[in-house]
């Protein structure tokens, strides 16, 4: 007999909320009983998410939360800290996709965001990324799903710290390329198709808040810059690092295999033959996989690290489901089996 958990998605008319509906709808152990939206109340979820036209569910008011086993909050930064008590009242397990519970201390929220309303809860929250924090997830009641760019960067760099290739004092450049769904469903003039298509557009070139998250989990500052490029889904991080001591390609394979050989959702892609030799967002579009890889640059004493994810999946909704699976004691990959597409254009 299969266990079945009742789930709610708050902010279900948004991009990550829609992705969660899709994943939970196909999840063997979950029943979605509520999807909230203030703007689309009483409309079918398919009226917003055309891929969910077959789903028999209407949006309801986030102020009337049903009692469920697990609640996913897909609301903008600041909303979860406000609504957290009602979320936790409604569900024993709350997975928050916003930045509200990712950092450890109030001080960090004061520095990087505009403060925190409920700092006392920060200590309760577990970071969702299983590759980083799997052991603390079982039974967790408040889970903070990682930022998409931070997830990409952390997954790329982590093996270098695990294997002591880096120790934390080195300068690290993280140059990120992201798709338009990162901005959520709102979107102003800069996100309109004529202005946004075909871009390589620097945004948040310095002072990006994901620096805080990367620093919190890798223990090292990074020089982060993001660029919008012409895709809808996807985040790709290229990290340029200069280890103090020389390493070989073999050392790097050992490091990456050491960190990820057993991980169900991380693939090491580095060199090889054919068209797809390094991590690419389009190779993982729609899937919960991360691709990570590296190349050695002896001339410059550099390691170039590549990391690619689908920001809607490994970068948000997929990571959230993965963490919930671990928290609830389910099969880790349940509901996350989709392999991705080939060929695929600009997903």
């Amino acid at each position: 007999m299969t266990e079945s958990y009742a789930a709610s998605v708050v902010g279900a008319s948004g991009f990550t909320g829609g992705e969660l509906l899709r994943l939970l709808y196909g999840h063997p152990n979950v029943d979605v009983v509520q999807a909230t939206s203030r703007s689309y109340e009483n409309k079918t979820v398919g009226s917003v998410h055309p891929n969910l036209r077959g789903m028999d569910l209407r949006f309801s008011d986030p102020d009337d939360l049903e009692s469920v086993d697990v609640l996913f909050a897909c609301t903008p930064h600041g909303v979860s800290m406000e609504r957290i008590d009602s979320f936790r009242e409604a569900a024993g397990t709350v997975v928050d996709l916003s930045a509200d519970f990712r950092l450890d201390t109030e001080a960090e929220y004061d520095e990087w965001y505009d403060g925190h309303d409920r700092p006392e809860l920060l200590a309760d929250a577990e970071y969702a990324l299983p590759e980083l924090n799997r052991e603390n997830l079982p039974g967790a009641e408040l889970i903070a799903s990682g930022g998409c760019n931070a997830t990409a960067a952390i997954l790329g760099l982590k093996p270098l710290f695990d294997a002591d290739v880096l120790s934390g004092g080195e300068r690290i450049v993280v140059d990120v390329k992201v798709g338009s769904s990162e901005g959520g469903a709102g979107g102003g003039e800069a996100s309109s198709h004529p202005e946004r298509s075909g871009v390589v557009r620097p945004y948040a070139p310095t002072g990006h808040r994901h620096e805080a998250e990367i620093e919190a989990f890798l223990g090292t500052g990074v020089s982060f810059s993001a660029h919008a490029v012409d895709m809808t889904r996807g985040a790709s991080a290229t990290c340029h690092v200069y280890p103090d001591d020389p390493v070989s390609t073999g050392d790097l394979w050992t490091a990456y295999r050491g960190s990820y050989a057993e991980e169900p959702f991380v693939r090491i892609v580095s060199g090889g033959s054919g068209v797809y030799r390094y991590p690419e967002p389009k190779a993982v579009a729609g899937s919960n996989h991360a691709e990570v890889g590296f190349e050695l640059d002896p001339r410059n004493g550099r390691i170039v690290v590549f990391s690619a994810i689908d920001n809607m999946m490994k970068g948000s909704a997929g990571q959230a489901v993965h963490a919930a699976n671990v928290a609830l004691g389910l099969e880790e990959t349940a509901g996350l089996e989709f392999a991705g597409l080939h060929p695929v254009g600009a997903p």
Partner: protein
Amino acid sequence: MTEDTITTEDPITGEEIEIPADVEVGEIIDSPITGAELEVVSVDPIALEEAPELEEDWGE
């Protein structure tokens, strides 16, 4: 799903559809069959009418 629904007739196809029980007169919902916007014109008994279509306006 625990939310209450009621059954009524879809004004376009004539088929039976379920809609939320708490709708109010004047509210616009969409038909689960045609996707069309329907206006709740009465609640007891429940009755729906096609809502005037909102023009897409994609310039010229």
